């Protein structure tokens, strides 16, 4: 099912709205990872509102839907906000994040059957492998869907990511696209201080993936990358998106200690003011 494709100015506005939801819902919850969600907003907005993903919010388990697996599960406020804006569930539900009884758990939980959530993630390193499973099933069933998996850059520390990288190439899984949200910042500091994984694009290329590098906040570059990977056959593709952790909120951009912290109400007001609300 084709979604209406937003123009670049409309997408920009959608991104601003998603950032507002992310701040509000994590502040209401009193915890969460807003900065990890803010860095991938343009990627999520392009996937869901830029005509990339094929989905039907009213029939969320439609067999031929494209899949989006958020392997960096801690960034889920961004995905929840996107799914709500796309009509998978009511926007009011966002304010139940992390509360007992809410399917919007602290990390995505598949068994809650929240429309749009394709996998349980939060233990880093597993989403790409799960994505291969979905992609192989598409091949077996003769269905044309594509599978997108968003990974963190720190997640590339996990050995399983590279097990999956090798297997996807060997089995020519070309209906699979990985997106690395390369915000170069993780729980205890800058990536180059924790475990320097550079040059990351060279590593993915060496493993046999079609590898693109883009500015992950430039909507035209993001849309162009998704258009290009779709044309690749015979091998999986990875988009390494250079991003800024906490993008859009100056005090979150400036300090890595925001990894696992929500804004207090006063800080949230400042953040929303910066976003123009």
């Amino acid at each position, binding site marked *: 099912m084709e979604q209406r494709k937003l123009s670049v100015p409309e997408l920009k506005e959608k991104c601003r709205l998603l950032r507002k939801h992310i701040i509000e819902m994590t502040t209401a919850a009193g915890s969460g990872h807003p900065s990890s969600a803010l860095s991938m907003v343009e990627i999520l907005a392009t996937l869901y509102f830029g005509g990339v993903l094929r989905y039907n919010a009213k029939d969320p388990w439609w067999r031929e839907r494209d899949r989006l697996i958020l392997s960096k599960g801690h960034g889920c406020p961004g995905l929840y906000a996107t799914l709500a804006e796309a009509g998978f569930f009511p926007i009011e539900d966002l304010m139940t994040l992390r509360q007992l009884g809410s399917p919007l758990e602290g990390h995505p939980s598949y068994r809650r059957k929240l429309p749009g959530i394709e996998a349980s993630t939060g233990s880093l390193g597993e989403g790409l492998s*799960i994505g291969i499973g979905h992609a192989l099933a598409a091949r077996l069933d003769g269905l044309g869907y594509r599978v997108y998996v968003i990974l963190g850059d720190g997640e590339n520390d996990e050995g399983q990511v590279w097990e999956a990288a090798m297997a996807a190439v060997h089995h020519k899984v070309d209906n699979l696209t990985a997106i690395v949200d390369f915000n170069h910042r993780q729980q205890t500091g800058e990536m180059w201080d924790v475990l320097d994984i550079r040059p990351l694009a060279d590593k993915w290329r060496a493993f046999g993936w079609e590898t693109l590098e883009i500015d992950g906040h430039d909507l035209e570059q993001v849309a162009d990358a998704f258009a290009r990977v779709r044309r690749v056959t015979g091998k999986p593709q990875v988009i390494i998106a250079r991003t800024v952790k906490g993008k859009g909120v100056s005090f979150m951009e400036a300090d890595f200690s925001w990894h696992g912290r929500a804004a207090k109400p006063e800080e949230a007001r400042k953040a929303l003011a910066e976003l123009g609300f």
Partner: protein
Amino acid sequence: MPLKMGKATRDAFGEALRELGRENPNIVVVDGDVNNSTRTEYFAKEFPDRFWNVGIAESNMVSIAGGLAACGKVPFVASFACFILCNAFDQLRMSVAFPEMNVKVVGSHAGISIGEDGPSQMGIEDVALACALPGFTVVVPADEHATRAATRAIATHNGPCYLRVGRPNVPVVYEDGCHLTLGKAIQLRDGKDVTIIANGIMVAAALEATDLLADQGISARLLDMHTVKPIDEEAIVAAARDTGAMVVAEEHLAHGGLGSVVATAAARLCPVPMGFVNLGDVYAESGAPADLLKKYGLTAVDIVREVQSVLQRK
């Protein structure tokens, strides 16, 4: 009367999986480059399009199976019991158990009876680990016929399962074409003085033990507790009530295996004196299987000794 020697349970698993593959096109297999050990090669030869060898990478193998299950496939993933449970435990947790995926996990080369390859290849923690995962059904069949029945049972059960099979040829306990109901123990002998509860290769040893005990005038009931989880509480309660003492025998470490599961049920429902025949709290070593089973206390004689000991506390 000595039991006739049969096939290895891994062989029976491989044959049963191929047969199930003919019946159900949704059955698929992900392999960690040990298909000629686990016998998934039989399936692979007949259904190459439904089989993927992903190399020596158990974590990736298990998570891929989780993704396939989310799309309605019935994936079997098989490797050595130690590698699939210990190496891929977090993937069994996050990609299978927690999202409630219909994945069938098969651990071959379980126990110390693999022999000469030694402790690094021996799965002796696997039952405890599998039982720790919410929603998992855990099955340890006794012989080739029970393994065929168990493979069919887990394939048709909707939910994650762990099936434990072994490397060496083992004695035949059941008739060809026998039936096995998950969660329901099979009573192989009736008796009044004590109940022996066993699974896997210890069932044949326990059968021999019941004969040795009969010679001493001790009447033993024998239950094949092929399903460790969910445990057959009804059979345990009946055994405790009717015989007043129980001995649990398994080819596994002491902690978290069949003995622990039976003892937990018994403590809650029907406490009676109990004894345990298992590996204790140690890693074994290389050696001929029969020598190892003797050295580490997993023979009919060891079961008899434990029964005698528990009867003194009855």
